[in-house]
């Protein structure tokens, strides 16, 4: 903005202001209305949800699955998707520092006198994209299931079979996360996307015998699971061989 543009803005603003309304009571009334909504929201939330606490802090745990407060989900997801380790500092230090500096110094590099969002296509696009990216990361962070359990529902067709088949299915569903499969594979919302392939529809690609074969003689870096107790091995193979497209869509 050069001097002429600055003066023009100040002149225009003075005209607009002189034709405006006094802060009290017009704006105060509007603000007051909004404040009532805001405080009302806080009161409603605390009435409905209250202040809950989890179990006492225990640094010796090896089973707790840490998850942040929802407004840090975007950071959480960023930390999860940025791998391998050579670019980890990008997520922990790089991106946050750059984002903060860009935000802080915004008025010093965006110096055009234009204020209308539709006539500032670059700024508006960047702003909208940032919001969408943060919303997407927040959503993914909220959905990201822990690798310590499988949250997929048992489909009705298997529940109907009942008996030994259902028991084996449920057992497999427990054995898989406790054997560490989800550290490298994703099943439904749980587990990590890589290094191993997504297993949500594995049975569409591999028959039961093929799954058993892969578990015994996998390609590196996957370890062999041939030392699993036979009952557990059977349950794992059985569970994985039910994971088809229909299984995922059956609710």
């Amino acid at each position, binding site marked *: 903005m050069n001097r002429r543009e600055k003066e023009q803005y100040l002149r225009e603003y003075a005209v607009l202001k002189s034709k405006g309304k006094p802060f009290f009571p017009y704006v105060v009334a509007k603000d007051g209305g909004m404040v009532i909504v805001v405080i009302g929201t806080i009161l409603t939330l605390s009435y409905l*949800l209250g202040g809950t606490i989890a*179990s006492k802090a225990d640094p010796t745990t090896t089973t707790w699955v840490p998850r942040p407060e929802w407004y840090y989900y975007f950071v959480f997801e960023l930390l999860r998707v940025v791998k391998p380790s050579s670019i980890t500092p990008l997520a922990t230090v790089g991106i946050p520092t750059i984002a903060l500096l860009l935000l802080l110094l915004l008025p010093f590099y965006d110096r055009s006198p234009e204020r209308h969002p539709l006539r500032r296509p670059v700024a508006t696009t960047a702003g909208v994209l940032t919001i969408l990216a943060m919303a997407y990361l927040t959503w993914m962070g909220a959905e990201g299931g822990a690798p310590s359990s499988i949250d997929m529902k048992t489909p009705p067709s298997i529940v109907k079979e009942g008996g030994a088949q259902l028991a084996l299915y449920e057992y497999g569903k427990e054995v898989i996360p406790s054997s560490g499969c989800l550290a490298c594979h994703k099943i439904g919302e749980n587990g990590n996307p890589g290094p191993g392939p997504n297993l949500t529809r594995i049975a569409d690609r591999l028959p039961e015998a093929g799954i058993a074969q892969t578990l015994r003689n996998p390609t590196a870096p996957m370890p062999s699971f041939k030392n699993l107790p036979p009952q557990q091995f059977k349950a794992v193979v059985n569970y994985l061989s039910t994971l088809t497209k229909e299984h995922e869509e059956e609710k």
Partner: protein
Amino acid sequence: MLKLPSVPGATPPRPGTPAAEPKTKLDNAAEAATAALGWLDERTALSGTARFVMFRKVPKGTNWFYTLGTSTMFAFMSQVITGVILAMFYDPSPNRAYESMRYINNDVWAGQFVHGMHRWGATVMVIFIFLHMGRTFFFGAYKYPRELNWVIGVLLVLLVMIMAFTGYLLPWDQRAYWATAVGVNIFASAPIAGPYLGDFLRAGPDFGATTLSRFYSIHMLVLPGLIMGLIGAHLYLVIKHGTTAPPWVTAELDEELRSEEV
């Protein structure tokens, strides 16, 4: 609608005119109040400040988007009040913190409600400060002459996020402990300064007896002080430069409309 009232105290109390109706008790009370305000104003000149803050003009076309800043500030005030009350019952030592939180939740009258207000107030405040920043960005309100106020605003966003982070540890439950451990390690991953920053935040190389009280002190003394100071500066600059008009309202356009009407 209300008319612009005259500032009390700015005009000296009028002496009762002889032909007027007999004074009621209400008149006497009003006169006493005006006199008291006049006394105060004579010694502080506060009426000028009141005029500066409350009776300034705001450009035409301001809409509901302009209430987001006030909303954030009131959410902060709610946090201050509930925070003070929680501090009356909370014990920032690692062996007692969790028990004192359980005491607040289970035994103190309305304890869980106030705890909830503080927790959800933080959520609401985070939402509104981001909405307010978004409004400022899309309306181009950070441009000349309000650049400095944008910088102060971004610092406030940062402080609010750090506030939310330091408050997180205080209940000393599993969620709190691990989220804070991760957070401290994020700070500690900065090159060169990181390791020392991590030691400073934890008060040593590992989480220890004074880590919690350190976070407590930062959460309830350092950050609120900084935030209050910056809110003051933010408001001063808002009032000094005036509220922006929405970018689609321009002086020329207004002029044209007016001439068409005639």
